[in-house]
Every structure is written in structure tokens, then in C-alpha cells.
């Protein structure tokens, strides 16, 4: 089924604030199998010039995933058929423990590619003080039946 084209260009309200904790960063680093101490040890992070433990480069997906942009049933996505097509992050700085971030997403494109449907989403990850931490460019693909 085609995804609702009315959503092209739509911007969604900011997500609930997400408080990034040292424990969550460590859990994520453990899950990706990365033993780097700057993800775990505040002293190691400070020695590397960071105010607190930082998160791995792909961590922002945790806070940007499942934002309002894809949740609306009117959009008509069949999640059982969804795979991730492309992903890119532009970083102003790493996400770090203590950040309280919100995500603001917009759907920039929906189009058919062969039997598949492709949706592009841009998300700004900002702190509660309004500092832009990174931008996420996400393309998901709904595979055709």
C-alpha cells in the first residue's frame, strides 16, 4: 500500500525531553561491543577533553528513533516490511551524559523506487538549552509485497 504523500514536508512537534545517562551510554556501548573507556569512565572522557562520558557516534539513533514522524497511523507504513535504507549523522559535538535532548523531525521525501516505498526523515537533536548537537538523516524503505 502506498505511503500517504500528504506527509511530505510535514514537521512534527518536538519529542519529550530525553535525559542521557552514563548508564544508558554504557549499555549502548556494551551492546555494540565497543570497550572504549570514553563511553564508560568519566575520568577517561575528561582526559580526552570531554566534560563527561560521551556516546558512540550512532547513539543518537536511540533518541531520534520512533519519534512522532513515523508513529502516525495516517502515514500508512507497514512496519513489518520496513528496513533501514540509509543513515547519516552530522555532528556538532558528541552526545554526552547529562544532556537533555529533544528531537524535531520532518519528512522531506516519500517516493516509490520499483516496488518499494522510500521515506526520508531529517531530525534535529537539540539540548533543552537549544544547542544543536547533531542532525540525523534517515531513509527507511518499506519493501513491496
Amino acid at each position: 500500500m502506498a505511503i500517504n504523500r500528504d506527509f511530505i514536508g510535514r514537521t512534527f512537534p518536538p519529542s519529550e525531553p530525553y535525559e542521557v545517562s552514563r548508564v544508558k551510554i554504557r549499555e549502548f556501548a556494551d551492546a555494540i561491543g565497543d570497550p572504549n573507556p570514553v563511553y564508560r569512565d568519566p575520568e577517561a572522557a575528561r582526559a580526552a577533553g570531554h566534560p563527561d562520558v560521551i556516546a558512540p557516534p550512532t547513539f543518537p539513533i536511540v533518541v531520534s528513533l520512533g519519534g512522532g514522524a513515523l508513529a502516525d497511523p495516517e502515514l500508512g507504513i507497514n512496519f513489518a516490511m520496513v528496513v533501514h535504507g540509509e543513515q547519516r549523522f552530522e555532528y556538532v559535538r558528541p552526545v554526552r551524559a547529562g544532556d537533555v535532548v529533544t528531537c524535531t523531525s520532518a519528512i522531506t521525501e516519500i517516493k516509490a523506487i520499483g516496488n518499494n516505498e522510500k521515506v526520508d526523515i531529517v531530525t534535529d537533536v537539540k539540548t533543552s538549552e537549544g544547542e544543536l548537537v547533531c542532525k540525523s538523516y534517515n531513509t527507511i524503505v518499506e519493501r513491496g509485497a
Partner: protein
Amino acid sequence: MTAKVKFDEVNVGDELPAQTYHVDRANLVMYAGASGDFNPIHWRESFAKSVGLPDVIAHGMYTMAQGGRYVTDWAGDPGAVLDYGVRFSAPVVVPDAGGADLELTGKIEEKRDDNTVVIALTARAEGQKVLTRAKAVVKLA
């Protein structure tokens, strides 16, 4: 926030040392929990097959994370990564028995004036490219 690798000591065309990372179902269960992506195609074989996949597949973001780890291990500081993007060109199939191996290679594609380099990455599983157009921009010392 300083990379270990010095800008003046790398050249366009230099290759990063290749690495192999192993992935099995337990990694995907951990990743599902840590990331919040509980799509059953990443942990339930019967479901994956029912939607036309050959078997359980890794989260694309898990594979992307391995590429990130490859770059940050080389650069020495994850904070030195300014931009990182990939295209997921094929799924990483993770069988119950034996799991899968991800083979990462990378090459310095470009040196820029601001002490940054563009690294072109490839990731392969079972000989097939699973990430394409994968690039990281890293600020070197």
C-alpha cells in the same frame, strides 16, 4: 578532543588496517534492548522468514555502529568524528548457529584544508557488501 592520528602523517589512498567483528544473535538481542528497536526481524527467525527474509538479519544500525567503532578505534577519539553516513545495501544475515562475520576496510579518500579527512568505508558479510557509500569525516591532530 584530539585524535591520535596526525593529519600530516596520512595520505590520500592510505588504507586503514582491516578488522573483522563477529556478530551473533545475542548481540542483536542486546542491541534491540539498548536501542529500543524491537522489530522481530532482528531476533525471531520464524517472523523474519514469514516476511520474506532468508533468516534473522542484523539491525542496520548495529552494522553501522561497527563501522563507527572501526573509525573511532583508528582515529583514537570518537569526538573527532564530524560526519558519518552509510547506505545499507544488503542485510547481514545472522544464522542461529555460527553467527556472521563483518569485515571492515577503509581508505583515506580525501584530505581537506581544515585538518579533516574523508574515510571511505566498506563492510562485507559473506563476501557481499552490506554498507555502500559509507563515509566518515574525521578531524585529525
